């Protein structure tokens, strides 16, 4: 050893350098793959909520739409969750890029695979009701979320606009219901002459009601539907 090789070996000895253990690199790589998987799973939850929100749009038959429904349709688009999905897909891309061989994958391929995985898993989560559970969980705990998400509960709890929704407290078949809306207010609802479209109308069930407000806490129903 005479030249640079000697200098390097001396520097290694002088500075006490040793190769980082293999486990360090393995752990680093595993952490990034785990974060990528978590990003996809969080993206899947976002997809489940998007499906829930869109199925709500179908289920309610565009209730409250006027002759020019574009603004109503746009109001139903779950922007918050679409933005959340995009964020997690970017996070998946970034973390995959940090893995040992992640740079080899093209951006389009990584993002497409992450979206596809999120959509498939999100579809399954929707079947397990994860979308609606997540939505309600956030809605009851984060006021900002409730405002941003233009929630179904918010949109369908508009007695002056002809919509009322909530949980049934008592039922007098063919006559009257008492219902607690999603803000906790109790209503007496006249159902004489109302079209009953819900499968089960019983205490403890959640329903959506169309009709007219007739008093401070009174409502006259024209139809009663299942909430879900």
């Amino acid at each position, binding site marked *: 050893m005479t030249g640079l090789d000697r200098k*390097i070996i001396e*520097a*290694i000895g002088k500075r006490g*350098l040793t190769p980082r253990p293999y486990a360090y690199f393995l752990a680093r790589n595993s952490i990034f793959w785990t974060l990528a998987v978590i990003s996809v799973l969080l993206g899947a939850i976002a997809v489940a909520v998007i499906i829930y929100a869109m199925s709500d749009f179908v289920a309610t038959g565009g209730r409250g739409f006027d002759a020019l429904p574009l603004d109503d349709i746009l109001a139903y688009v779950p922007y918050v969750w679409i933005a959340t999905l995009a964020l997690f897909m970017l996070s998946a891309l970034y973390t995959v890029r940090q893995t040992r061989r992640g740079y080899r994958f093209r951006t389009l391929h990584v993002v497409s695979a992450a979206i596809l995985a999120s959509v498939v898993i999100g579809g399954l989560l929707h079947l397990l009701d994860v979308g609606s559970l997540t939505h309600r969980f956030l809605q009851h705990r984060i006021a900002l979320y409730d405002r941003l998400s233009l929630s179904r509960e918010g949109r369908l709890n508009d007695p002056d606009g002809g919509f009322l929704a909530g949980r049934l407290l008592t039922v007098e078949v063919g006559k009257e219901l008492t219902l607690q809306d999603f803000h906790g207010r109790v209503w007496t609802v006249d159902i004489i002459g109302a079209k009953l479209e819900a499968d089960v109308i019983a205490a403890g069930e959640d329903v959506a009601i169309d009709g007219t407000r007739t008093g401070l806490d009174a409502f006259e129903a024209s139809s009663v539907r299942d909430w879900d």
Partner: protein
Amino acid sequence: MADDSPPSDQDLVRAALRDPNAYAHIVRRYEARLQRYIARMLGRGHPQIEDILQDVFLKAYVNLNDYDSQRSFSPWIYRIAHNETMSLFRRRRSMPQMLTGEDGQRVLDRIMDRDATEEWVDDARNETRLKQALSTLEQRYRDVLVLRFLEERSYDDIADILQLPMGTVATLVSRGKQRLRKAYEALDL
């Protein structure tokens, strides 16, 4: 009968992980190549070439376990050299020099499939033109052109060195060639 073939890079890495002195073999094997590569990025005669080279070998030693022995060692250590050189530019907030006339000429020869002994190679006006043309190229194009046409690396190796998808490397090489040719020819007008 003893095998006289030189030890593979993988053998040397394994040996270096057991005994730091064995790392000298790797240093000797790659010293000239990496020095030339760093000089191509920094510009020949740059005072920090040797410092960077030392840093590259020390960094490679510390990260030796990160090397995937299923793949070639050379792109792995070139990647460290590339990153170390680029980080020097980032620290100094400057850009690498354009390729020097001779290297740049070689890139252009290979891109244009010309014979390097042609008369125009020695033409000082052409060299100036080439320098001007190269200076118009973005760094990413210069990086791939150097690796492809001077270091004579495969697309696969370039992908590993620059940490890019192989398709992106192919695109950069193709566009880099076009842009250099266009810039060179435009200067003729």
